[in-house]
C-alpha cells in the first residue's frame, strides 16, 4: 500500500508486450513441463519419438479430449463443473449415427445432417444443465452427475445397448482419418481451431470477461448488472455443444459409437484443465494452459510406450501432476490473500 497521492507511475508501460505475458503467464510453468517431457523422450528414443507420424499419433489421440476440455474450461472458470461431457459425447454420437442412418447415403448432406444432430443434442443437454444450475439453483456437481447418467442411459435406450456401427464411410474417410495436404489430420485441425476460437472468446470478448467475473464473484457480477443466470446457461450450453461436436469427431474417428468408452472423459478433461492452471475455485485460467494440460497426459502415454515402460505408469504420473498443479494453485491463492 502506497500512501503517496501520486496516482499512476507515468513511465510504467500500460501493458507488457504480448510475448512477455505469454512467457510470464500462468500457463508458462506447465508449458515448460510439457517441453521438458518432449525433450526427455526425444533424448531417450529420438528415432521413434521424434517423427511426423508419432506427432500425428499423439495429436490425433488427444483431439477429441481437447474439444471437450475447451468447453469445460469455460465451465470451470465460472467455478462450475460439468461431469456430463462424456455421456453427452456418447449421446450425440448415437444421435448423429441414427440421423445419418435415417437419411442414408454418403453425400455431404448426410454428413451435415449428422453434424447438426450431434451439435443440437449436445446443445440441448447443455441448456438443460445450465437451466437447472442457474435457475433452479441446484449445485452443478449434482446436476451434471444426474445428466451424466441420463444422457448415457438415453443413449443405451436408443441403441438397445449395442454400438451403432453403421457410420457413413465418407465421414470416416474425411473427418475421421483424412489429412490436409496428406499430412495434417483434419481431426487435429478441427480440435486446434476449436481451441483457438475458444481461447479468443475467453480472453478477448465480453463473453469471456463475464465468465471470469462470475467465477470470481458471482454476487458482485450480479450487482454490477451482469445477467449471471443467462450467462451461466450459455456457458453450459457451450460445453454441451462442444461435447456434441466431440461426439461427432469420435464417431468419425472410430466408425462406431463407442458407448462404453467415455466413462472417464469428464475426469480426464477436468484433470487436463486443472493441470493447465485453471482454478477449480473459478476466476482463473487460460485456454493455452488447457491445451498444455491435454497434451501432458497424451505425451506421457505415448512416451512411456515408446521407451518401453509399462503404460500404466502414465496414470500414476498424471495423478501426481494433477495434485501438484492444485497444490501450486492453493499456494498462489494463499500468497495473494495474505495482504
Amino acid at each position, binding site marked *: 500500500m502506497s500512501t503517496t497521492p501520486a496516482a499512476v507511475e507515468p513511465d510504467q508501460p500500460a501493458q507488457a508486450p504480448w510475448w512477455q505475458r505469454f512467457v510470464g503467464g500462468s500457463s508458462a510453468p506447465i508449458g515448460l513441463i510439457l517441453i521438458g517431457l518432449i525433450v526427455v523422450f526425444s533424448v531417450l528414443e529420438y528415432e521413434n519419438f521424434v517423427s511426423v507420424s508419432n506427432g500425428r499419433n499423439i495429436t490425433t489421440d488427444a483431439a477429441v479430449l481437447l474439444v471437450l476440455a475447451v468447453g469445460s474450461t469455460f465451465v470451470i472458470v465460472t467455478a462450475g463443473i460439468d461431469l456430463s461431457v462424456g455421456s453427452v459425447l456418447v449421446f450425440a454420437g448415437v444421435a448423429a449415427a441414427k440421423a445419418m442412418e435415417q437419411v442414408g447415403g454418403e453425400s455431404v448432406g448426410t454428413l451435415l445432417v449428422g453434424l447438426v444432430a450431434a451439435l443440437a443434442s449436445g446443445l440441448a443437454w447443455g441448456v438443460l444443465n445450465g437451466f437447472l444450475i442457474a435457475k433452479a439453483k441446484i449445485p452443478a456437481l449434482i446436476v451434471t452427475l444426474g445428466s451424466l447418467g441420463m444422457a448415457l442411459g438415453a443413449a443405451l435406450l436408443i441403441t438397445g445397448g449395442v454400438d451403432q456401427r453403421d457410420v457413413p464411410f465418407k465421414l470416416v474417410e474425411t473427418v475421421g482419418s483424412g489429412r490436409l495436404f496428406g499430412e495434417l489430420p483434419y481431426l487435429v485441425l478441427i480440435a486446434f481451431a476449436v481451441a483457438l476460437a475458444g481461447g479468443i472468446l475467453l480472453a478477448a*470478448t465480453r463473453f469471456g470477461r463475464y465468465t471470469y467475473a462470475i467465477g470470481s464473484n458471482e454476487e458482485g457480477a450480479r450487482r454490477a448488472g451482469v445477467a449471471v443466470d443467462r450467462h451461466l446457461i450459455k456457458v453450459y450450453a457451450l460445453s454441451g455443444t462442444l461435447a456434441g461436436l466431440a461426439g461427432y469427431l469420435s464417431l468419425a474417428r472410430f466408425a462406431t459409437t463407442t458407448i462404453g468408452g467415455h466413462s472417464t472423459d469428464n475426469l480426464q478433461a477436468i484433470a487436463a484443465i486443472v493441470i493447465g492452471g485453471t482454478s477449480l475455485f473459478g*476466476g482463473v485460467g487460460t485456454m493455452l494452459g488447457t491445451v498444455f494440460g491435454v497434451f501432458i497426459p497424451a505425451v506421457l502415454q505415448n512416451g512411456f510406450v515408446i521407451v518401453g515402460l509399462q503404460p500404466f505408469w502414465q496414470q500414476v504420473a498424471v495423478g501426481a501432476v494433477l495434485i501438484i498443479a492444485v497444490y501450486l494453485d492453493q499456494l498462489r491463492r494463499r500468497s495473494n*490473500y495474505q495482504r
Partner: protein
Amino acid sequence: MSASGRTPLLEARSIVKSFGKVQALRGADFTVLPNEVVALVGDNGAGKSTLVKTLAGVHQADGGEILFEGRPVTIASPLDARALGIETVYQDLALAAELDPASNLFLGREILRAGPLGRLGFLDKRAMRRQSDEAFERLSVAIQDVGAPVATMSGGQRQGIAVSRAVMWASKVVFMDEPTAALGVVQTRNVLDLIGRVKGQGLSVVLISHNMPEVLEVADRVEVLRLGERVAQFERGDVSMEDIVGAMTGALQRKDGT
C-alpha cells in the same frame, strides 16, 4: 422540506419495509441534498442498511414514497437506481478479486471495440484501461500495477477501486456502506479524503458509519435512524457527539422540527 430549505436531491418519505414479522423500517424518512456529504447513523438494527438497499434498488419498499429531484420515482432494481445516477459502494465492495482494476471498473458496462469486432463482443481493453487510469488519477487512488488482480492489493486500494467505480458511473449520489470499517488508520484517512474529493466533483455522498469522530469530520449533515424511523437531523457545527449518540440511543428527544 429539509432543514436548509434547498430542494432535496433524493428524499425518502415514510418508507416501510418488513422481513417476515420483523419491521426493519417503520415509516423512515431520509433526505439527501445536492452536493453534500450526509451521514446516516444509527445503532445496530436501526435500519440503515435496509434503507440504503431500498434506495439502491436491492430491496423494494412495502410502503412510502421516494422522490428524486422532486419527482416521485420507483426504484425496483439496481438498474433503476443506476439510471437515476445513484451508485453504491457495498460493504463487501462486490469486486471480482481475480480481475484487474480496470475490468472491475467496467464490469457490466464494458467498452467494445468499434466496427464489426465490437459487434462480435470484442473488448476495447486499451480504452477501458486508459479511462480507469484517469478515474484513479482524479481521485488520487494509488494503484502500482493496473494489470494485477485486485486480490493482490491492499484493503485500502480495494476500497479505492470500489469507490472509483461508483464515482465513475454516478452522476448524482454515491452511497457508501461502512467504507472504513475494515481499514487501518492510514487507509481510513485516504478514504475520508476520497469522500471529500467525490463531493468536490459535484456529487452527493451518503456515508453510513459507526465511527462518530469520522462522521463529525466529513459530514455536512447527520441524519439519525432509530428503530426504523428518523429521529433527528443535525447540521454540521451545531452538533456534538453527545447529541448524536443521545439520538441514536433514545436518550435525547426528537430534534428536527418535524
